[in-house]
């Protein structure tokens, strides 16, 4: 699925025009991206959360020359799916008996 197809589905469901829906979708993505750039986390109930983790600086090697290179510490964004989304994706068929069922 592409962003255009997603916009189409949202427009059908919301009654907003495709143009307005496209703007809203871009702004959702922009809001999430901006929050992550500021080191903020984004929690979307029932869906998941976007957060930023710090990767420590480390020494790596250039595989071609064998020279040691310093890799500085950096911030990396990641997504953690909510239990609801995990349950939805896994489907009812393969849900384990030991795992607590999500709503």
């Amino acid at each position, binding site marked *: 699925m592409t962003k255009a197809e997603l916009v189409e589905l949202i427009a059908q469901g919301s009654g907003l025009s495709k143009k307005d829906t496209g703007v809203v979708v871009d702004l959702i993505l922009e809001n999430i991206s901006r929050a992550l750039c500021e080191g903020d986390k984004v929690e979307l109930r029932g869906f998941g959360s976007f957060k*930023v983790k710090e990767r420590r600086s480390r020494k790596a090697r250039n595989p071609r020359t064998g020279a040691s290179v310093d890799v500085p510490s950096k911030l990396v964004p990641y997504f953690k799916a909510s239990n609801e989304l995990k349950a939805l*994706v896994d489907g009812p068929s393969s849900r*384990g008996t030991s795992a607590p069922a999500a709503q």
Partner: protein
Amino acid sequence: MTKQDIVEDIALRTGLTKKEVAEAVELFLKKIGEALAEGKHLEIRGFGTFKVKERKARMARNPRTGEAVPVPERRVPVFKVSKVLKDRVALT
């Protein structure tokens, strides 16, 4: 940041009502979830890709009792951050 914050920002910037924006935001999340549940991938340029990965069945241990427990195979949603977004976050 929460859904509420995103809805308010978008309503302010577009002139759409908060109700209209909130509905679109909910549908955005719902439709992504549904696509993943159908096993579809969603690629958003400059942001990232939502995918479904298969996890094989494995044996795990109950850490309290030490008892071996089978974990059935399952499908999990994953998000791969685009290089554009990764670089943007790393540089700030």
